[in-house]
């Protein structure tokens, strides 16, 4: 049988614009009877192995995030199915952790308490605090566990979010453009930390949605490029250049040019 960690089979997503007649409609009966329908993802097939770091690239609005949310179980495809470890995905799971694009730390909890939310299985509160400190140290955040999220910079918040995600000991980590709201320098730092985390926890499979080609080149084992909507998998590339990588180096230069080409950019290089 198939031993892939994640199998995405013929996943199709369409948005149906309802015509506003919501009165007394229950469930999904109303869908696709009327109203126009727009196909977002069309027949997506993927195989991802355990421990891979896979980046999904594509134009904005091509359905990258939608695909990620489907694999993570937050939404359902119109057709097709996703299997993780052979089991059909039917909802979010505690070991499939999603790091959101915008801040999703609970603003009413301190950073330490936020990370501790993922450590609720640890009964002893002191031990929990200690562990949340350790996870924060993993992303180079120290001495802020008693601060509230609004007291930190965007980069620190995103770090804390990654710490919370790691504290949940994810089997799969989903990252939806986690660094897109940050300044360039912070992004470079966080890339390094991601790489470090992936080396520290090699068994964690990471699915990383981005539109930053250098980010994808520097971090991932594999790149998946989606076409414009209705999106299909346009191409899949394995990157076997050892870390640490320089996205501007010759090893990656050709691949980089190809990716730009695939994304319809011909003059950037």
């Amino acid at each position: 049988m198939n031993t892939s960690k994640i199998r995405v089979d013929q996943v199709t997503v369409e948005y149906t614009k309802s015509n506003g007649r919501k009165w007394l409609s229950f469930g999904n009966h109303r869908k696709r009877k009327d109203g126009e329908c727009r196909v977002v993802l069309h027949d997506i097939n993927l195989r991802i192995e355990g421990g891979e770091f896979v980046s999904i690239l594509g134009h904005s609005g091509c359905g990258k995030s939608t695909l990620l949310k489907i694999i993570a179980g937050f939404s359902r495809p119109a057709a097709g199915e996703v299997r993780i470890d052979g089991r059909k995905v039917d909802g979010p799971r505690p070991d499939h952790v999603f790091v959101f694009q915008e801040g999703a730390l609970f603003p009413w909890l301190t950073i330490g308490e936020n990370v501790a939310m993922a450590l609720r299985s640890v009964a002893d509160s002191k031990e929990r605090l200690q562990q949340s400190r350790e996870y924060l140290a993993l992303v180079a955040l120290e001495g802020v566990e008693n601060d509230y999220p609004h007291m930190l910079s965007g980069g620190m918040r995103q770090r804390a979010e990654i710490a919370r995600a790691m504290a949940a000991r994810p089997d799969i980590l989903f990252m939806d453009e986690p660094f897109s709201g940050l300044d360039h320098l912070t992004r470079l730092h966080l890339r390094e930390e991601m790489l470090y985390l992936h080396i520290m926890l090699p068994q964690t499979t990471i699915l990383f949605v981005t539109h930053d080609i250098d980010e994808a080149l520097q971090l991932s084992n594999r790149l998946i490029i989606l076409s414009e909507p209705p999106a299909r998998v346009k191409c899949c590339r394995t990157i076997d250049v050892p870390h640490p990588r320089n996205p501007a180096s010759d090893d990656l230069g050709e691949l980089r040019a190809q990716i730009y080409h695939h994304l319809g950019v011909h003059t950037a290089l």
Partner: protein
Amino acid sequence: MWWLSIWNGTEQVPGLRQIASSLYELSTNGVLLRHTVASLFRVTAGFYLAVALAVPLGLFLGRQARINRLVNPFVQFLRPISPLAWVPFAMLWFGIGDRPAFFIIFIAAFFPLLISSTTASASIHPIYFQVAANLHLTKWERIHRLVLPAGMPGIILALRVSLGISWMVVVAAEMIAVKSGLGYLIIDGRNALRLDFVIVAMLTIGTIGLLLDLCMTRLEKMEAVRWRLEHK
């Protein structure tokens, strides 16, 4: 001179001097204190009752859009009816004494609290629920670690507004059916043509309203809700 008439008053309106002496008289003989305590007691009881029912119900309705769609027309139907319109029913159901006053205050505070807490919980960003699903929060954890703290700033604002309304309504409620409270003092003063007593009662009501609001503003500055001010 105009200031002289303010000081000494006119035939109809008592002057400052008389108001001051009445204020002194009423506060030293304990009448004012007794009425104030009676009013505060009624406000507290009616208000807490409203909080205890409206806030949980509102938070629940805010998360259950479908049920809310059914309930909301009734709420919007009842809401514009002035609490004072309930006075005859309050007396019919609860007779004479404190209980009709509790009921009037309850009605006055209930709807603003219900609507604000519904809005507060309905407007919680869905991303927090996705995080909650991801972290596998239990139903109970979802309520007390997510819905309650996330709705708290909205709830506190509603408490502040509705406490003001309760305090306003208690006077009206005391104009019927009871023999104590600041509202009674006003009615009694009016009947006895003692406008100075009426003004003393009004001054007391205003002062206590201000103090209550100061307490509520304090609440808004608590650590648990401060994030709302600074959260982008």
